[in-house]
């Protein structure tokens, strides 16, 4: 594959205005599929399964089988539509999208066409640099996912060169909501970052609603990015490309940036953009041409005769609207204000995906500063070293208890880290670990004074310096006392007592 010429990103922005449009597919985590009572692999209970073991005759389109709509999937779709600020259609229906490809056995996909369940929304998206965009949503519609093909033969496992393909229909029929934006103008150089932040916001919304596992690496959340450029001053939109196979937040940003640079180079050279599907390659960080948009895109949609219209009652819509969680962007603003964090500290929490943990730890009684410190500091470090999620190491309740033990003076930071090790190792709650390992700070002044007097007596030169007013000399005595106490003392208290004993004797 020849490497495409790329224009410098800043130069491309000088000459052209980028316009992006995003299609995001969200797999719902209902127990069963959209139109069949087969277990849904997008629900974590069925995530691991052998090929073709999560299917019913409906998933295979066997003769005599009929689809029936999953009521829970409809509720989830309405909730998602409302969270996207959409109108909910008083009546919507399903349609057949006809195409011949073995990822669906029926030769059509059940989707929605002219009557989507939700339309005309708006989502607030905040970039890492603080810019806020209102992304216009054209529609959100319900459909079913397709099966998975494994191409066998050839050297790469990719389509080119494959001799045959193996089909697993476990994913066929998984409930999907496809969210389509209107063209997004005005992002300019932030277009790649906006694409990423938008998908990240959709993920946050889906998670806060509890309607999807929303894990990109598992394909619960998939994004197709449309990019076009128009010369500065031109009204008419340029020809767009649609980049598929973008499977991480980072890739979304890179893919949009790449397409801007690639298209700019072609246009500046007097060429024209082919309207086509392009595939993102994670390894090379490039896109390559896929199928051109042609008359093969003639899907001959028609109303699905096997399914009846969906007519949600106003009562149901209001019930679901009342149950909506706070929008992610508003929630972040509120938390940042309540916690009194700097932009940097707050972004650190968000970027480490620890917002939920910190929130719960604060709710469990820790100060926001302590909750942030333990999660983004010690726990994130250990999680990174063990290659696991920080959230899997300790519960918010345990972290809050640990923070309170430090606040009350029972533990120093150093001791608290040892206690945390015990908690992670499964030795129980922080208090249990303190008791079992005997890690509490010695707060008995009598024991401290005995150790201080001994240290002062053995270092008469230091004692003399302190009495001469050279307070900084006390460090040596404090060190000796801390060592004698095996670290289980509060250094500030020891310092107080050292100065007291040295000067009042």
């Amino acid at each position, binding site marked *: 594959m020849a490497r495409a010429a790329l224009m410098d990103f800043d130069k491309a922005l000088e000459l052209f205005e980028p316009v992006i449009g995003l299609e995001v597919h969200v797999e719902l985590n*209902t*127990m*069963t599929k959209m139109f*069949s*009572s*087969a*277990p849904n692999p997008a629900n974590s209970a069925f995530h691991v399964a*052998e*090929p*073709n*073991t*999560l*299917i*019913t*005759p409906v998933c*295979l389109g066997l003769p005599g089988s009929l689809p*029936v*709509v*999953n*009521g*829970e*999937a*409809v509720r989830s779709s309405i909730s998602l539509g409302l969270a996207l600020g959409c109108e909910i259609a008083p*009546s919507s*229906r399903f349609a057949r999208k*006809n*195409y*011949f*490809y*073995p*990822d669906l056995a029926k030769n059509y*996909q059940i989707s929605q066409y002219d009557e989507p369940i939700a339309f005309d929304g708006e989502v607030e998206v905040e970039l890492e640099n603080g810019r806020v965009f209102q992304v216009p949503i054209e529609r959100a519609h319900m459909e079913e996912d*397709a099966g998975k*093909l*494994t*191409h066998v*033969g050839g050297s790469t496992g990719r*389509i*080119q060169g*494959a*001799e*045959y*393909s*193996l*089909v*697993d*229909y476990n994913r066929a029929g998984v409930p999907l909501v496809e969210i389509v934006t209107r063209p997004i103008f005005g992002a300019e150089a932030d277009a790649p970052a906006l694409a990423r932040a938008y998908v990240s916001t959709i993920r946050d919304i889906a998670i806060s609603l509890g309607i999807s596992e929303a894990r990109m690496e598992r394909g619960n959340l998939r994004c197709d990015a449309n990019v076009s450029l128009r010369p500065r001053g031109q009204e008419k939109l340029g020809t767009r490309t649609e980049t598929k196979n973008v499977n991480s937040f980072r890739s979304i940003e890179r893919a949009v940036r790449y397409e801007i640079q690639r298209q700019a180079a072609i246009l500046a050279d007097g060429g024209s953009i082919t309207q086509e599907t392009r595939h993102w390659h994670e390894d090379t960080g490039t896109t390559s041409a*896929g*199928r051109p948009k042609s008359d*093969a895109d*003639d899907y*001959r949609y028609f*109303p699905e*005769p096997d*399914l*009846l*219209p*969906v*007519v*949600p009652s106003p009562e149901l819509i209001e019930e679901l609207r009342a149950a909506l969680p706070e929008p992610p962007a508003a929630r972040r603003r509120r938390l940042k204000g309540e916690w009194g964090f700097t932009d940097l500290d707050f972004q650190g929490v968000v970027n480490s995906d620890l917002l939920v943990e910190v929130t719960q730890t604060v709710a469990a009684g820790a100060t926001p500063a302590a909750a942030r410190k333990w999660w983004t500091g010690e726990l994130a470090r250990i999680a990174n070293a063990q290659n696991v999620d920080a959230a899997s190491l300790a519960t918010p309740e345990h972290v809050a208890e640990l923070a309170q033990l430090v606040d009350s003076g029972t533990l120093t930071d150093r001791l608290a880290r040892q206690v945390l090790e015990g908690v992670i190792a499964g030795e129980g709650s922080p208090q249990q670990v303190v008791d079992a390992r005997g890690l509490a700070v010695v707060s008995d002044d009598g024991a401290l004074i005995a150790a201080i007097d001994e240290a002062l007596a053995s270092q008469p030169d230091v004692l003399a310096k302190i009495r001469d007013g050279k307070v900084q000399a006390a460090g040596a005595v404090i060190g000796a006392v801390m060592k004698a106490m095996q670290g289980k003392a509060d250094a500030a208290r020891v310092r107080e007592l050292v100065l007291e004993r040295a000067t009042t004797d």
Partner: protein
Amino acid sequence: MSEITAEQVAHLANLARIALTEEEIAHLTTELGQIMQAVEKVGEVATPDVPPTSHPIPMQNVFRDDVVGDDVLTAEQAVAGAPEADGSRFVVSAILGEEQ
């Protein structure tokens, strides 16, 4: 009244991956045209005050509970009727570059 053309038949055959000879296209063009004419009789009774409908029976909101059913197949059952399978997956000929 819409006419079915040979080009439309060839286009549909291409979409459906069916190879047709010129004779077959001509034959099907005539047959599909007759079917279309028969169906279009509906238009004679559908006056402007009759709204188009996709469902003749006024029913709506037929939903299923979100509960796993007892008709889940084993992989062996799933591929039992397949022309070719590898034991648990369907084997199909490789189709180039046409993922939807």
